[in-house]
């Protein structure tokens, strides 16, 4: 697991974001911020991913997709809510089709605020997620040894 804790792969899903946070997630991966130099790669396959970046709030239509992606990811896994809509539904909190933040669907480990979330905040959140991922990996290994 040590390689994964140093160079996690991320999967990104746009729940019902306005795109602002999505393009900032991509901008963090591209030149300018370039987290790929640390081995953080955006993947389309939930089974390859260690970190789940969700942007936007949860609604009736996409709640199943978010749960499905989360369930397909292998342990250990960390969820980051990117942007204020993913944290608490933000300005859209009283829209009729919005249930709330991502924590209404799946357990969230790190909250990255901002509208739109800045790439620096995403990088901070990923760094924090690395620590959580490491802890979860160790707990998983200990559990396997004990069993």
């Amino acid at each position, binding site marked *: 697991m040590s390689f994964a804790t140093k160079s996690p792969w991320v999967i*990104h*899903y*746009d*729940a*019902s*974001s*306005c*795109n*602002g*946070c*999505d*393009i*900032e997630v*991509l*901008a963090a991966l*591209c*030149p*300018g911020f370039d987290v790929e130099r640390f081995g953080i790669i955006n*993947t*389309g*396959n*939930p089974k390859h991913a260690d970190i789940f970046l969700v942007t*936007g*709030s949860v*609604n009736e*239509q*996409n709640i199943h*997709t978010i749960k499905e*992606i989360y369930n397909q990811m292998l342990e250990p896994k960390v969820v980051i809510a990117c942007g204020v809509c993913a944290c608490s539904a933000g*300005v*859209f909190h*009283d*829209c*009729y*089709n*919005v249930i709330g933040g991502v924590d209404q669907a799946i357990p969230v480990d790190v909250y990255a605020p901002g*509208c*739109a979330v*800045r790439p620096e905040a995403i990088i901070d959140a990923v760094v924090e997620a690395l620590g959580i991922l490491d802890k979860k990996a160790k707990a998983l290994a200990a559990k396997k040894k004990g069993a």
Partner: protein
Amino acid sequence: MGKATVIPFGPQHPVLPEPLHLDLVVEDEVVIEAIPQIGFVHRGLERLVQTRDYHQFIYIAERICGICAFGHSMGYAETVEKLMGIEIPPRAEFLRAVWHELSRVHSHLLWMGLAADAFGFESLFMHCWRLRERILDLFEATTGGRVIFSVVKVGGVTRDISPDMFERFATTLSGIKGEYNQICKAFLTDASVKNRTVDVGTISQQAALDQCMVGPFARASNVNNDIRALGNGAYGALSDFKPILDSQGDCYARVKVRALEVLQSIDIINELIAQIPAGDIAVEVKGSPALGAEASNVLEQPRGECYYYARGNGTKNLERMRMRTPTSQNLAGMTTALAGCDLADVNMIVLTIDPCISCTER
């Protein structure tokens, strides 16, 4: 002839930054029919006009879409100004047009990067996004935000741009232009790019007209449809504006139209900056829209014509606010282009309409 199979495409797919679901009915690798399913991004924000007053709603309007954020705040503000009969200062009109064209450059560069990613040209993707960062730096220096700016208000704009900053605009844009020409050359002449785009997803001019397609998607099929040519606001000051058209109607033509529009937008920004008038940047707005007053407005977004409609009810809240966004017009064209294409070309065709799902579903 094989048996028809249905392949689900999306809502989570590496090529799609946004959730869109397509049921692709395929027979031997050939797509017979594509059935779109939407609703993953629907928030129902048009209804928020009932609880937010018309000054507050501009921040909601801006968050319809993070890529065309500036266009939506500008379109909403213009509609409410029409509704209340407000005349804004000419300098504010020019500043709005400069930021709007800058958004078009950023949106097209973003799209070109995603398109390069879709046909597997990773380094071209990175180069487009590298140039885009420099546009975002200009936004950050003048508005404080990278993607959501909040500089437009009903009655004008909240921030002015100083002459020094306009100098910086000119130097940055001329610097970008040189590097951009190299990227353009890769998009338009590289054999590996042409293999993926030429004669893929062709739409005839008649089909484009029949399906009311808008924006660069329609202009690539030789439909002369560009709202900027009407000369609304500061666009009336442009000496010679001609929409960029192409007659091929395939993916290559759509890449070409957008690639040339970036250069056109840079020229428009330079022309507007050269003749920007001095004066105030906003007028004070008081009162409420009258009961039963109606206004509509059109605006050329990076993705095409966007239509706004507003109705007042005598209070601070609007009775109704409605937008018809370019992607909802173009979805019919996309399903037509997908019918009969190879399965491997699906992501290329979906991307060349430049889908903006959060605009469409709101």
